[in-house]
């Protein structure tokens, strides 16, 4: 691996490590992002010192006057250090903006030290300050993206959990399943419903599935299309779909919208649908004995 050229920044970090650390710490204090309520000074300093040391080591290998891409292998240790400090601090309740400001607070003290050290070579000062600024910006950006990714993951997980709760597939009888739909049926949810239902068909070797729309608030053309597609997919799997819960009002709306259900079986109530499902799988419900007078 080729060594990076010695710069004033790398010299500062190796010869005046504690000085930079103190100044960074002081700037955070001034900017109000030190959070002494969450971390003791000792703990904070240890975190900063670790991050700064990893940075200093990276500068020994990487020439930051070249375009910086911290997603590359060379920066992997630093990325890990950034992720760790972000995790530790946010778990205790540090806000995203505070974390970004926390990182950016490194700029000013280093700029000040650079302008002392490079007072006689303004061109170098300008070049090094801008290189260093870009790197710190990249770190701050990385912290921010880390946040967004983590938040997205949480949202996705909650969405999946909610989806599972809101579309339960229930086995009514041997070879007969039902999925009671409630609320609204947008494209995203329709796909989840379909996937859930088809997987359950495989799992239970189900031959008939009742898609009950009694609890669906609005049935428009789009919802009707979703239902018909679900029925088509169920048929491709080798099972049959019955759509139940078609109220007189929904039936009228569907006809007005020109929705043609084609071959798909529909029933007004889940009870009527169950009756039909039993007929198809070869069961019959009958009273054992009429004990009423």
């Amino acid at each position, binding site marked *: 691996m080729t060594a990076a050229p010695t710069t004033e920044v790398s010299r500062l970090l190796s010869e005046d490590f504690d000085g930079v650390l103190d100044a960074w710490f002081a700037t955070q204090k001034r900017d109000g992002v030190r959070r002494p309520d969450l971390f003791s000074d000792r703990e904070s300093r240890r975190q900063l010192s670790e991050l700064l040391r990893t940075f200093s080591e990276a500068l020994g290998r990487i020439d930051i006057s070249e375009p910086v891409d911290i997603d590359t292998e060379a920066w992997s240790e630093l990325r890990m250090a950034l992720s760790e400090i972000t995790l530790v601090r946010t778990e205790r309740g540090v806000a995203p903006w505070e974390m970004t400001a926390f990182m950016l607070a490194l700029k000013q003290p280093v700029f000040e030290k650079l302008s002392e050290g490079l007072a006689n070579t303004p061109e170098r000062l300008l070049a090094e300050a801008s290189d260093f600024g870009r790197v710190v910006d990249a770190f701050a950006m990385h912290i921010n993206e880390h946040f967004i990714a983590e938040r997205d993951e949480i949202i996705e997980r909650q969405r999946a959990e909610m989806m599972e709760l809101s579309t339960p597939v229930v086995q009514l009888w041997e070879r007969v399943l039902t999925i009671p739909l409630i609320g609204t049926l947008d494209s995203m949810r329709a796909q989840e419903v379909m*996937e859930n239902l*088809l997987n359950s068909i*495989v799992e239970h070797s189900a031959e008939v599935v009742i898609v009950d729309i009694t609890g669906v608030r609005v049935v428009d053309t789009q919802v009707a299309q979703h239902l018909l597609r679900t029925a*088509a997919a169920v048929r491709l*799997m*080798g099972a049959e779909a019955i759509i139940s819960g078609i109220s007189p009002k929904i039936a009228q709306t569907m006809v007005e919208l020109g929705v043609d259900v084609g*071959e798909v079986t529909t029933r007004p109530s889940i009870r009527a649908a169950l009756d039909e499902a039993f007929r198809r799988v070869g069961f019959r419900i009958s009273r054992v004995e009429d004990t009423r007078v």
Partner: protein
Amino acid sequence: MSEAASVYSVDKVLLVAIRDNITDTDIINLQEDLSERIVNEAARGVVIDIAALEIVDTFVGRILAQLSSISRLLAAETYIVGMRPAVAMTLVELGMDLPGSKTALSLSHALRALKAKGLA
């Protein structure tokens, strides 16, 4: 026989298991082979197991639909069985519902249906 599938003949029913990731020529050859065998063996039923297929694109979908139509003309009934959920959803999205083809959950479901009709 064909590269694309293994075919067994049991009691006037041709059982076909299609292999994954086949070429277009493979499946066209299969269509020709099957048409001949239906006639030569006087088959009354054909069960095509596509459980191995990770995808069914418009081309394979069209051949499957054609197979059903051809066998019907030759007095045999075709069942497509074992379609994976992801494949079914994708086909519906492609607008290929295979309306003319019979489907069943599995080989045994298809055989039961054929027996009920006196075709196996």
